[in-house]
């Protein structure tokens, strides 16, 4: 069943278009930086971008920081929002379920496929960014945000944790979108609800009046992976981020399952 769903993912033009768009944005930014040579002043602009001009090895992290706030969550919401609602709107859901594919099984498989998509997207963005960064700006040992250098194996280790952290955050988004996807027969409505939740979270995160709820917002720790590039690594926010996302994942996947397993399929 997983193979069937993976094949559907791979054969879908939309998968590749969205990944190409995701990888295209940082590439575009790199071209601008290279041509003009004007980077944001240190401490301003998107994370890492100021340092990228001197060291292309930082570009994967900079690229993820670029796509994370908006682009990546949109792609994930659309993809996860489409999982169940997309099959429902096409009418194929009823035929899948009468094959029969168990409802829990279908949900798990759809989630796994979404995870594959998220990892694929994050990895391709990181890989493309590495190639682009290396060719345009050259590779040096990573300087940490705190000033000291980070050596090769250490750097790849930190980049791996960054990719995992970002993917985990996106899984939180995927869980919300998957839940929305079991509520409606319209993939667009599902993606929009998930995005609405995220935008709300990001707006509240900017609001001083909402200080009390900030640490529990799903988007609050999204960019905390920057702390992984400090020496020594500041684990506090990263681990809090992992935990908060974990709670969102468990709650929304649970809700998605509870709803879908008992739902009358009328699509």
């Amino acid at each position, binding site marked *: *069943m997983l*193979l*069937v769903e993976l*094949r*559907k993912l791979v*054969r*879908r*033009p939309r998968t590749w278009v969205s990944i190409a768009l995701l990888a295209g944005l940082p590439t575009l930014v790199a071209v601008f930086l290279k041509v003009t040579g004007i980077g944001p002043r240190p401490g301003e602009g998107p994370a890492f971008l100021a340092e990228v001009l001197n060291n292309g090895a930082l570009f994967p992290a900079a690229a993820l920081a670029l796509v994370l706030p908006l682009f990546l969550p949109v792609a994930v919401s659309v993809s996860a929002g489409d999982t169940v609602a997309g099959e429902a709107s*096409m*009418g*194929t859901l*009823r*035929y*899948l*379920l*009468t*094959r*029969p*594919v*168990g409802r829990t099984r279908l949900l798990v498989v759809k989630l796994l496929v979404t995870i594959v998509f998220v990892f694929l997207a994050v990895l391709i963005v990181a890989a493309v960014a590495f190639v682009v960064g290396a060719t345009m700006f050259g590779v040096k040992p990573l300087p940490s945000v705190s000033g000291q250098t980070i050596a090769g194996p250490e750097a790849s280790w930190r980049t791996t944790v960054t990719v995992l952290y970002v993917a985990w955050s996106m899984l939180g988004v995927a869980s919300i979108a998957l839940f929305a996807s079991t509520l409606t027969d319209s993939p667009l409505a599902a993606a929009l609800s998930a995005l609405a939740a995220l935008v709300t979270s990001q707006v509240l995160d900017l609001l001083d009046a909402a200080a009390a709820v900030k640490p529990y917002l799903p988007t609050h720790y999204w960019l905390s992976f920057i702390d992984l590039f400090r020496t020594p690594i500041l684990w506090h926010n990263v681990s809090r981020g992992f935990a908060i996302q974990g709670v969102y994942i468990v709650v929304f996947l649970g809700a998605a399952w509870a709803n879908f397993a*008992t739902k*009358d*399929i*009328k699509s």
Partner: protein
Amino acid sequence: MSVAAAIRTEGLTKRFGQVVAVEGLDLEVREGELFGFLGPNGSGKTTTVRMLLGLVFATSGRIELLGQPMPAGARAVLPEVGSLIEGPAFYPHLSGRANLTLFDEAGPPGPGGGRTTRRRRVSDALEQVGLATVGRRQVRAYSTGMRQRLGLAAALLRAPRLLVLDEPTNGLDPQGMREVRDLLAKLVAGGTTVFLSSHLLAEVELICTRAAIVHQGRLVAQDRVEALLVPTGRVEVATPDLDRATELAARLPGIDLGEPRAGRLVVQLDGTSPEALNQHLVEGGVRVRELVMVRPSLEDVFLALTRGGASDAAG
């Protein structure tokens, strides 16, 4: 009970909030028969089909499919059931063949769904519904009729013991309808049970042996098709001498004169035979071009059944 039941429901009821979609439905479809499930649109047919297949959960009542309770036995029994529910559905960007292959791979294989025979099975199914030559084309480019055929092919993939078909001839031209009827007859001859849900009396009348009629979610009747099709007793006469014919017919005992329709005399026979009417008209100098016994429509059957006390069957 000598013949096993392919489908059996007892007191099947479904409410959506305040709305009662199906109420107290007792169906019995015997193994190997072609069973018609008749009712006007909105009578609860599709909800019933969805409950049979475990898509919609019944509010109360029991369902048995091929001897297994539903929806609890879904995993065991559904691999042996092929279905067409409210029209076919496919991934438009893939070919018909690719769609069938994906569909065949999903879920437990069941006795008829082995992996090694998949390619063969898909080809056979396409062949059976007359799509062998267009199987490689994207479904996007299929006509309504072709999609309907592809839906049937999907239902037939694993040589199911039971076919549950909801309006299978929708969107087909008369030739296509005929082909589907022949196909179903062949399948039934080969031992498949077919549950055919339809709002077309003529379709059911042509191929089904037994039928159930539902109206507003309740069973109105369940019997052999001949027993359900009580004659209307209505006769239409086409004649160039309409006025003379009307005059003559009005004088005949055992006849109720209806409003002429499209230049035809319409009468309700009530004790007089059609041949007596014909003789009477011809002897009176009326040139009869055509005399037709009007076949009962679904509404006529409803009326006859509800008026004639057969509504007791609804319990």
